[in-house]
């Protein structure tokens, strides 16, 4: 008996399936959620450009999502996406990349894009490790965790990336986990629709290169942990900081209106064009 075709396959470059994600990886979930969000919004992928960097989660759009794609150098997808977006404001430009890519090597591009509030949707898959290179410590790895480059345990505190991006000026910021798939679909829809810089931190699992070091060998074990650790932002606000130790604050951190960079850039450019036009009309 053959399985009915999943209609989300319409959004996938089917010819290169099967995908290369490890068993239990969260990237498949994110790809599934992303296609559902696009489907719900009835967005035409022809009107989209997906940009990614280097790392496992970069593969979510590149090559799997069937749209124009730009698979860039490590850490730079937001900078590449900036060039695409300002030139084609009519296209939806989405960046899907990992925590190492976006908050490590590319951290500067992230905060400046948020500050400019450019209309990009950035979905950062945070698996708390450099997975593709074999499990080295990331800026998001919790303190005390053993990784291949912190064999004597990680002495650094992790970045709170969603809070960082909210402080930098983004219009929309949320954090969910791969356990919260329906919340995540909704959040992606909101982020893609939002005018301005929108950012979702998606806490995800890497059973192979992170899980085995913290004693979680399957994706399911991770999801159970995320479920237990998650605390809605409204509840978290009522608790003292020490009670939030080891918890993942989920929900919408920011949803606000701020001037958007691309439209501002085109506004000032048009003003200059109009000035020249007026001057020439005066002469003739």
């Amino acid at each position: 008996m053959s399985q009915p075709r999943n209609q989300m396959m319409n959004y996938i470059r089917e010819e290169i399936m099967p995908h290369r994600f490890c068993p239990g990886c969260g990237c498949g979930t994110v790809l599934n959620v992303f296609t559902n969000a696009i489907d719900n919004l009835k967005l035409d992928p022809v009107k989209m450009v997906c940009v990614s960097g280097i790392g496992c989660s970069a593969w979510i759009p590149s090559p799997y999502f069937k749209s124009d794609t730009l698979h860039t150098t490590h850490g730079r997808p937001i900078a590449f996406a900036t060039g695409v977006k300002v030139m084609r404001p009519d296209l939806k430009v989405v960046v899907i990349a990992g925590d190492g890519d976006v908050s490590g090597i590319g951290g500067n591009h992230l905060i400046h894009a948020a500050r400019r509030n450019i209309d990009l949707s950035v979905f950062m898959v945070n698996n708390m490790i450099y997975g593709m290179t074999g499990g080295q410590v990331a800026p998001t790895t919790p303190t005390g965790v053993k990784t291949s480059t912190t064999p004597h345990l990680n002495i650094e505190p992790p970045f709170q990336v969603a809070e960082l991006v909210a402080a930098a000026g983004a219009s929309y910021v949320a954090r969910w986990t791969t356990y919260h798939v329906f919340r995540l679909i909704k959040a992606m829809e909101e982020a893609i629709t939002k005018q301005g810089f929108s950012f979702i931190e998606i806490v995800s699992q890497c059973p192979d290169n992170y899980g085995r070091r913290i004693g979680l060998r399957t994706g399911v074990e991770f999801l159970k942990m995320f479920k237990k650790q998650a605390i809605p932002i409204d509840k978290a606000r009522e608790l003292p900081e020490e009670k939030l130790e080891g918890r993942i604050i989920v929900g919408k951190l920011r949803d606000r209106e701020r001037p958007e960079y691309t439209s501002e850039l085109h506004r000032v450019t048009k003003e200059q064009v109009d000035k020249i036009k007026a001057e020439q009309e005066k002469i003739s």
Partner: protein
Amino acid sequence: MGFNEDRKRYLAGLEDKTYFMLGDEACAYGAIFAGCDFFAGYPITPASEVAERLAEELPKAGGLCIQMEDELASMAAIVGASWTGGRSMTATSGPGFSLMQENIGYAIMTETPCVLVDVQRSGPSTGQATKPAQGDMMQARWGTHGDHNIIALSPNSAQECFDMMQECFNLADTYRTPVILLMDGEIGHIRESVTMPALSSIKPAARKMAKPGEDVFGGEELVPGITHYGMGQNVHVTGSTHKANGMRDVTTPHVHEALVKRIYNKIDDNREKIIRVEKDISQNGQSKIGVIAYGATARPSLGAVRAARDDGKNIDFMRLITIWPFARKQVAEFAKNLDMILVPEMNLGQISREIERFVNCKVVSVPKIGGVPHTVEEIYDAITEVAS
């Protein structure tokens, strides 16, 4: 984008006029005349005037000009912009050029047309920020990792800064590759007359477009047609080794070999179409000594050659306008009857070693670093020392 009504209206106010301006500013106006749609940059001496002038003028022609957070991002943004079909560029100096190497490699591997201006200053590292040099000649050639070719041009006047921007964009679009205007700080900050051309004389090269469904990264031709974003072709652009259809294949040896060799050969096989040199041969054709120079150094070099001729010496002169691909055939031809070639450069002999590879005569480097260009006397002395 390109030469729309807004741009034509703006350029109509400038065409056929002569202005007194910096080499950097000439470069900015040259870019607007060349149809530049997008500039992204980061401030750096002595290239900031390119960004400042474009920030002022490019929007008047309907183009977009933005400042990014660093040079990595600037280079990334112009590659992104190029895939929407726009002509895009950045400008920097040595330290920023070093940072751009990462995404120059990306532009080469993805065959993205774009233009970089490097107004060279004294290095290594921060070096002498305000002093000119020609120390990036080899960085332009080999700065980014892996086997590749590059196109780089070297202007020796403000007028050439203006004119060569059109040439750079045309070469970039023709060969689907990044092109470098390899200026030096002396030319960037020289102030000279620049004549703007008539609009009707501007002939921008068009990118060859792929037919719908056609491979964008390979096929029969050395330079495949391109597809832009938003055209419904689901084009997949990656800096990883890829097949003709753009899809990654990072393990099959012949896929990598075919891709990298084609990208290399598309410039190598067209070198005679790309390369420009300028020769000034002594009238009786009896010279045994020649001088080869480029950029700012070409000016005192020619002055010294003329002074030596006034003294009755036979000296030949050649200026390299195209630095990369290297004019090896032209240099070999120039050297055929010479005993010796002098190569004054504002570095410790980067191009003189390249010349050595292609000639049978002696090559004498006349290096000068420290931020002060060669004088005519210094080069004249170098000539008389070997000619006496």
